[in-house]
């Protein structure tokens, strides 16, 4: 029943337990496992463009380059929202948009994250930004989730996790868990921030607001 979490060789236990500021530099490409574990527990802000090695979703040996990086325009998509209506990313052009990928509705972390976005929604509106949450759940699940927690923003159904794969959202725990990664796009649709943190979901809100207020 117990899962084994192997600690990376270059991370000592005390350093994992103590809070760290998100790093802005990518570590050497050979250290895939340490980076994944670091992001899961302390969050990581990815600010460097191109050729960024991230933890593989299936194997510790293979290396997947992120398809969406800072400074690039991500591939567009059209997904159904919680009301079953198709929504395109292009709909939000002209204003900043926060696109956050989360594992699933009704899980504790995702609920905390959604509620934190809800509670800070006015600040996002003040910054002129829109918030969009994406997971693999179907529209009816999103509708129930949004209704239960009174979420004022759009939730999109990425059934089959196609957009998640296209954007290169890394999985956690050696592929066992869909990743929790947030992208902030400016009004031109260019990615200005990528923040990843699986187990401290509320931090996504502060990090994205900080960036939005500087745009």
């Amino acid at each position: 029943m117990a899962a084994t979490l192997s600690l990376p060789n270059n991370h000592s236990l005390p350093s994992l337990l103590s809070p760290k500021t998100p790093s802005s530099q990518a570590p050497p490409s050979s250290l895939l496992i340490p980076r994944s574990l670091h992001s899961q527990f302390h969050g990581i802000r990815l600010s460097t463009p191109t050729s960024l090695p991230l933890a593989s979703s299936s194997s510790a040996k293979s290396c997947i380059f992120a398809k969406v990086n800072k400074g690039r325009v991500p591939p567009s998509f059209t997904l159904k929202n919680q009301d079953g209506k198709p929504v395109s990313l292009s709909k939000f052009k002209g204003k900043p948009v926060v696109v956050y990928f989360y594992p699933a509705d009704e899980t504790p972390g995702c609920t905390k994250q959604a509620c934190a976005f809800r509670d800070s929604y006015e600040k996002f509106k003040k910054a002129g930004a829109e918030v969009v949450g994406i997971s693999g759940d179907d529209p009816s699940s999103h509708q129930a989730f949004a209704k239960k927690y009174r979420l004022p923003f759009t939730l999109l159904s990425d059934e089959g996790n196609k957009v998640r794969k296209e954007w290169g959202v890394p999985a956690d725990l050696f592929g066992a868990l869909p990743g929790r990664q947030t992208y902030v796009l400016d009004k031109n649709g260019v990615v200005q921030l990528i923040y990843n943190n699986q187990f401290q979901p509320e931090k996504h809100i502060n990090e994205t607001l900080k960036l939005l207020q500087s745009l």
Partner: protein
Amino acid sequence: MVSPSDLPISDLIWSIPFDSMSVLPQHKLFSSVNNPRPVVPCLVVRNGRVRCLAATTTTGPTGQKLESGKLVIVPVPTSTSTPPPDPPRVVTSPSPSPVRLATDDPSSLKSTWSHRAWVACGCTTVFVSLAKSVLLAAESHSWAGPILAGSVGYVLADLGSGVYHWGIDNYGDASTPFFGSQIEAFQGHHKWPWTITRREFANNLHALARAVAFSVLPIDLLCNDPTMLGFVAFFSGCIMFSQQFHAWAHGTKSRLPQLVVALQDAGILVSRAQHAAHHRPPYNNNYCIVSGVWNTFLDEMKVFQALEMVLFFKFGLQPRSWDEPSSEWTEDLEASAQIEA
């Protein structure tokens, strides 16, 4: 079932705090510390009396036989000019589920000879493991290995207790093969945490003792490595006694032996404060119950949360700690207050 709303609100003693001395003397339903008997919360109505019979009497106030497990509303005449009281209305409560037996049936907290036999077997296998380790270490004049292994066994027993406790608390139910009775017992424990302090020693430990006896006996017979035997002795011994440590963690400082309190304060046994945190919503932390040394790490690193997410995505299993606590899971605070009164 008569609900409080059927009766005038002003007449409902239910609205009076349970520590009110105007209420308690009328109904000596609450056990003394030295003669613990499970109690069931009762509603007292000023112009009538509702008695819970599940744990006390089987004869009604007018001498009629009443079936245990039923609520009886007995109107009390207020003056001689009033008409005679109506015959008692028998209000059937749901038949007690197995988890209620701990509070309704005091014998379920007592040790039987079967319990004592299993505890004796478990203790024997642990003692043999320890004795063999000591003798073999003495023969080889090599003590460091067994002593270190024993320490590791003590530390890992805490981790093992946490993992087992997490699994039992979150998955399965009474019908789960092999683990069903344990799962039910743990859920009952969450609803009535204090009953563990009323369980007799062998009653509390016999399930773990049985598992230890079956696991350790083959090792005792086949293993001749003092280091391995040292590890097994401490690991299995701590696992077997974890229920006693758990019971002590539910005790109050004034009622525990001083040595136990000292060991808890020193972090050698799980502390009362640490374990109390496990019994508060959302009931998803502080699972370890030997020394509690792993609790901080497991909770800060969100290890169990990660495991829950993995099990959810891989197998669709949703842990109980994700749901709003149901009435079967949350502590019966009214009963707790009565016990403390």
